């Protein structure tokens, strides 16, 4: 495909047309969700990021540069792949994958990271910090930092460093400093706490390159907009492929960036059902899960009002998932809003169901998905049986499974 083929990214692609009433209000609220619950010291930095993004998103030069990087560096547009042999296990429904696993660095995270790295440069900052769970956002951030010559520090829970050792090595190779976080549950939520502590200390020269659609305003909006290209492309492509819109769009939900990325372009399409799949871990009853939307309650975590796994006194409950990228006790506020408004439906997929789908896609289609994305695949298998053979289901294959081979070797005794 030539570089000039396909429309150049427009301001509408980036931020939508604003016709769905789904942009946050002046205080960064999606309905009652979102907002800012952060130390006052960070408010000026958040205001600065918000103001710069407002300018950037309609700036031709910025859009052209972002578009150029997406095409020539990230490898966009990513293709759709129809997977009939896999779909045969889903009651014969048509299943089509959006192949974010084929992007540079192997997951959808690269989209947001390139956008924010360009924004960092516009802000005149020379250092980026980021949190990472599975390591995909860390790798993507380290990649963009290397590309644009930015200093890069990645905070990663010590437990995650261990289960994603390969990604730690990749980040180091890319020139980033990886700081293992040893407090709390030593996973993503603690990495976020530590990144905020760094940010408040070094905010004058540092941009916090937030990796998901959670956190204080404007991060949920910015990260969504930079991930939105997934759905914008997929919507065009599936119309081309099937001649109509899909019956359902499926995505895995941890913090929620890949899900918002593919959902957003379809929110206005009333006939398209949106399904988000959270990690049910060892099952709801076991208490070891990351079912924030399906079993959590409304609270404040990491600067945003949203659904949270918490006890009756507001202490965060540690989440569990076999996939580090979904192992998070919070979720983006826009998902909370989509859930409460009924526009999207959220369900749980257990570790076992996800691993079954992981192996099934590998065997039937020759694609090894990320374990995160395997939750969406498992959801699509269930949904296909429910919707029947006439249905078309679009699944966001948000990342590839190379990083998960250690987990897979243990799980399947390979």
């Amino acid at each position, binding site marked *: 495909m030539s570089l000039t083929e396909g429309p150049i990214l427009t301001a509408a692609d980036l931020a939508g047309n604003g016709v769905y009433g789904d942009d946050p209000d002046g205080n960064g609220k999606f309905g009652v969700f979102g907002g800012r619950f952060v130390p*006052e010291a960070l*408010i000026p930095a958040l205001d600065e990021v918000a103001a710069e993004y407002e300018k950037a998103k309609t700036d031709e030069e910025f859009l052209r540069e972002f578009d150029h990087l997406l095409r020539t560096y990230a490898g966009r547009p990513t293709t759709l792949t129809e997977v009939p042999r896999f779909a045969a296990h889903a009651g014969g429904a048509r299943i089509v994958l959006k192949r974010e696993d084929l992007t540079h660095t192997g997951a959808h995270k690269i989209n947001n990271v390139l956008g924010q790295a360009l924004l960092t440069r516009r802000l005149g900052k020379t250092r980026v910090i980021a949190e990472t769970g599975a390591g995909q956002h860390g790798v993507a951030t380290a990649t963009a930092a290397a590309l644009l010559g930015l200093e890069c520090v990645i905070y990663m829970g010590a437990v995650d460093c261990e289960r994603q050792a390969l990604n730690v090595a990749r980040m180091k190779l890319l020139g980033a400093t990886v700081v293992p976080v040893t*407090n709390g549950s030593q996973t993503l*939520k603690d990495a976020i706490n530590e990144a905020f*502590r760094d940010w*408040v200390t070094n905010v004058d020269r540092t941009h916090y390159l937030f990796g998901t659609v959670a956190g204080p305003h404007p991060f949920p909006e910015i990260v969504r907009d930079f991930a939105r290209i997934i759905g914008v492309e997929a919507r065009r492509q599936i119309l081309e492929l099937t001649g109509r819109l899909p019956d359902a769009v499926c995505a895995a939900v941890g913090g929620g960036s890949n899900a918002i990325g593919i959902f957003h372009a379809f929110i206005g399409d009333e006939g398209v059902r949106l399904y988000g799949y959270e990690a049910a871990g060892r099952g709801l009853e076991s208490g070891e899960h990351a079912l924030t939307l399906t079993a959590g309650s409304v609270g404040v*975590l990491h600067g945003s009002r949203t659904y949270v796994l918490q006890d009756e*006194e*507001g*202490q965060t409950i540690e989440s569990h998932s076999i996939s580090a990228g979904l192992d998070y006790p919070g979720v983006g506020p826009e998902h909370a809003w989509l859930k409460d408004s009924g526009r999207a439906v959220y369900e749980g997929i257990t570790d076992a169901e996800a691993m079954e789908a992981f192996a099934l896609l590998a065997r039937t289609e020759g694609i090894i998905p990320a374990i995160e994305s395997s939750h969406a695949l498992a959801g699509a298998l269930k949904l296909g049986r429910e919707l029947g053979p006439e249905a078309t289901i679009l699944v966001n294959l948000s990342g590839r499974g190379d990083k998960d081979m250690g987990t897979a070797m243990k799980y399947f005794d390979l």
Partner: protein
Amino acid sequence: MTTLQTVFAKARAENRAALVGYLPAGFPTKDGAVAAATAMVEAGCDVIEIGLPYSDPLMDGPTIQDAVHRSLTNGTRIGDVMRTVEGVAKTGAATLVMTYWNPIDRYGPARFARDLANAGGVGTITPDLTPEESGVWLQESKDAGIDTVFLVAPSSTEDRIGKVAKICTGFVYAASLMGVTGARESVGSAAEGLVARTRRHTSLPVCVGLGVGTGAQAAEVAAYADGVIVGSAFIRRLLDAPDEAAGLASVRELAAELAAGVRR
């Protein structure tokens, strides 16, 4: 006059700054926190902030994180925080609760404000509650008759300082530097300017916290602020002590040093 107003008026009459000490509830133990805070009051603290231990303390440095983690591991609950406040308030010191917003939100703002007032607490400091989100808490605090303290920081614009100062009662908490809690070699040079900027927006007392840990630093801050806030340095003393008695003696010694500092 409210209890806090009385405290600051008395300090002003003595031509000195007030000394504010922080300790998390449940640290080193539930009773140990009351004993330590009592020692701090006896040795010269005018105000005590009792920290409500929270699982995700994103503006706290390693020392407070450590203490809070131990407290939560000890099983500290909000009821224990209220009992700690009750125990400390009996010393006569003005006792506040410092807490992240989510525990109040979840417990129920009205219930929290009422329980705190009933325990003898005089107010709260809420470091992650911004003016935009503070409406419910301001109303409930007013109804319960407790003060609301919020933070300004060196990065705060005039507009933000104005907004924050407007919703404070009791005093304004000026963070001395950009960073997390914890004792440091020197108090941020931005603190004095921030206090001066804050005074343009309010007649309330302005207290300075973050990074203060010695008598000399207390004296330096007391020269321009109405109150000096010390937290991590007290916790450090308790963490480093071989036993509880030694911890209490050490905390008492530090409080006396700081109390002398604010009187210099």
